[in-house]
């Protein structure tokens, strides 16, 4: 498969949140989201309750996919950073470790320069965590060790979802 399944464990989830919370403070941002390239929200910190995070995640992934398509048309691998400037709020979107999207929402209390600088540092840390995560998932699968909750689901379990 072109894109292996993404699995998130408690330990890495905490580490990831630690990194983006630090980024939120250091970049003076309002909200930070991490989104899978397929459009699934991985985590968010800051004033997340003010936003429709699910929609934001899906549109961000669509945006990255569309610009990625543009990049390929002109012979680039991808555009790794996107910046959207609004009247009050701005979006800084970047690709981390090739498969995860980091979205930083900030206003005039911060600046594009500061955000870019801090994002770069955080990206390296996030890349390392996601690499470990992928390795871990792979090892678990190889060893056959799995606490996967769906291994024993029954038809009844599934039918109950729709009742």
């Amino acid at each position, binding site marked *: 498969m072109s894109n292996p399944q993404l*699995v998130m464990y408690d330990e890495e989830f905490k580490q990831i949140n630690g990194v983006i919370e630090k980024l939120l403070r250091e970049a003076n941002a309002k909200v930070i989201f991490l989104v899978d390239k397929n459009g699934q929200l991985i985590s968010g910190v800051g004033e997340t309750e003010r936003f429709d995070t699910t929609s934001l995640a899906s549109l961000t992934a669509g945006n990255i996919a569309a610009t990625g398509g543009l990049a390929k048309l002109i012979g680039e691998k991808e555009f790794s950073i996107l910046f959207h400037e609004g009247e009050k709020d701005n979006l800084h979107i970047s690709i981390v470790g090739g498969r995860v999207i980091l979205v930083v929402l900030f206003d005039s209390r911060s600046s594009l320069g500061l955000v870019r600088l801090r994002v770069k540092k955080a990206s390296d840390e996030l890349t390392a965590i996601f690499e470990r995560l992928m390795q871990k998932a792979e090892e678990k699968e190889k060893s056959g060790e799995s606490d996967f909750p769906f291994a024993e*689901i029954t038809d009844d379990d*599934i039918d109950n979802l729709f009742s």
Partner: protein
Amino acid sequence: MSFINYASREINCKIVYYGPGLCGKTTNLQFVYQKTATEAKGKMISLATETERTLFFDFLPLALGEIRGFKTRFHLYTVPGQVFYDASRKLILKGVDGVVFVADSQEERMEANIESVENLRFNLQEQGYDLDKLPYVIQYNKRDLPNIVSVDELRRELNPTGVPDFEACAATGEGVFETLKAIAKLILLELKKGK
């Protein structure tokens, strides 16, 4: 591919509705949206032209409930059906867990259906997927119209491998949830198998 989050105990899956232009993909999502309880659904997003033709995609997040303590969420997407939006269609297939093919039952759309299925298979291949190995169901839509092709013939042309198929009228909602249930079930069974 699906995203399993042990930290927040969630499983997210992506379903894509595929099919020729004006076959009723968006109508399927709209009906699901209307009939789903507020707490189970998110906002429906439609990136459409001024004449309500899908430009990039429609998106509807659904939370179906819990299985073994895990929240199961399905993200429903449609592709733009018109032939010249092929580049966009490819993008939306990224990370897909299951596909619903919505066929237009009208005689004059038969060729468009066949072309669209071929396009689906080809675009999936480009992303490294095999349609025959992916959870896949077919919906024969617009069964209420007068000039329609028989289900037998639609089956022969569009469903040679015998995947689950359903007759529907998305405008009134007939067959819409049956289709959704079938694809959700196939995806969950695939998840079970995968581990």
